[in-house]
């Protein structure tokens, strides 16, 4: 109950500050299992993407986030675990048996949708970093799940790294056409194809 109030507060704040305009360019907001993959430039990325989805889809769409950042304080732990029901990944685990894909696969098996950032880290420049291979392994293991590219525009200007006070600039989230791993497609081909599909949604590229 309290969690949904906090979620509502965060959503309303994100939408008010950024104007949160969603463009469904190649897909529509449907309740099918999906992996939304987006560009990553700010800690607010998944919040804005999540807030851009219709309320009915938010409930079982879970952000994948780095445990190192989100486990740091009780407030962060509360927000990522209780409010957003996030899937936490230990990015610098020393345990050789630890498989970062495992928590994501478990969430997908449970029928949830995921929000992932295949660049693996926040990109402070324009454009897009090369993708890490995680997205390929997810696509290979869960062929039935649609992969939707989502370009989040301008949020890096609203909340630049290390700044606390957000700027009220307008942000647009563009949802592209669903992608699937094709049979026989190599890892390199898929990574570059999915990256191109995401880049094509960036209005600055045209």
């Amino acid at each position, binding site marked *: 109950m309290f969690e949904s109030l906090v979620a509502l507060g965060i959503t309303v704040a994100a939408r008010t500050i950024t*104007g949160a305009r969603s463009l469904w360019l190649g897909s529509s907001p449907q309740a099918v299992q999906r992996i939304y993959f987006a560009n990553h430039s700010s800690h607010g990325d998944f919040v804005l993407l999540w807030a851009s989805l219709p309320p009915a889809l938010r409930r079982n769409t879970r952000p994948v986030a780095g445990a190192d950042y989100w486990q740091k304080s009780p407030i962060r732990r509360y927000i990522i675990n209780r409010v957003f029901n996030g899937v936490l990944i230990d990015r610098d685990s020393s345990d050789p048996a630890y498989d970062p894909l495992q928590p994501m696969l478990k969430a997908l098996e449970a029928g949830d949708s995921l929000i992932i950032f295949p660049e693996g880290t926040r990109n*402070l420049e324009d454009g897009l970093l090369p993708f890490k291979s995680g997205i390929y392994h997810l696509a290979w293991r869960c062929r039935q799940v649609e992969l939707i590219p989502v370009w989040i525009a*301008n949020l*890096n*200007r609203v909340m630049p790294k290390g700044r606390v*006070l957000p*700027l*009220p*600039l*307008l942000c647009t989230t563009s949802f592209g056409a669903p992608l699937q791993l094709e049979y026989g497609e190599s890892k390199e081909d898929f990574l570059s194809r999915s990256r191109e599909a995401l880049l094509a949604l960036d209005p600055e590229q045209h």
Partner: protein
Amino acid sequence: MDKQTQMLFAGIGAILILASVIGRVLKWRSGGTPNPVIDNLNARINAWWVMVLVIGIAFWLGQWAVILLFYAVSFYALREFLTLTPTRRSDYPALVAAFYLALPLQYLLIAADWYGLFSIFIPVYVFLLLPILASLGGDTTRFLERASKVQWGLMIAVFCVSFVPALLTLDIAGFEGRNLLLIAYLVIVVQLSDVLQYVCGKLFGKRKIAPNLSPSKTVEGFVGGVALASLIGGCLWFITPFNFWQSMLIALLINLLGFAGGIVMSAIKRDRGVKDWGHMIEGHGGMLDRLDSVCFAAPIFFHLVRFWWA
């Protein structure tokens, strides 16, 4: 709200009813087939109802509400401008100063009736402060261009727009307590000029007046719209401190400025590769699309009245 203001809004209401009826008839005659021009016309008329309602409520609540309304208008306009003009990470302090310092202070100065400061605060002090803040980040890439973007945004969206409520600060002999009508006069004349240029352009438009800058503007629309709006401006002399001829000449001047404002702001949009500044007002685009002509007309109108009448 005095009698004249009520009459004015009743008149605008009557024109909007007429416009809505015409819009419906055109839609009905097109036989239900989607027609982008007619649908856009109806969207525009509906948005006009909302805009007139919002301004009407502010007028009814009084001067403070009008100042607050234009504060909000400036905020939305500044947001659209700075969204479309990319800056870099080191511009963050300058942008914070723009949104959280310059914008509220400008309107506070107007509310405090401090002409000596509100007329130079942004063009002098903020003009110097912004590049200082931008230099702190140590990033020289496109420095002049980035600094100018923030300065321009504040000048157009905050400084120029704030001269509309600044009309409330003028003391005009024999016109005491009626300054809201000056705002009504300015907004009605400039917006009517936009509307009539659009209507004349759609009805008679043939020769494009500035094809590279604003492909939809035509010579016929320009001449017809400006002439008609200036004539109506003359007929509105009874709500102003001017006589008929003064009122018509002033209307002509602010209509020409408004037209130029539309062209200039359109040039910025084309350069950025967009058609509209935003999506806030259905059928019109963003706040700045509706406001570009007012931005250019307001400061000149203010100073004209201040110099000769106040």
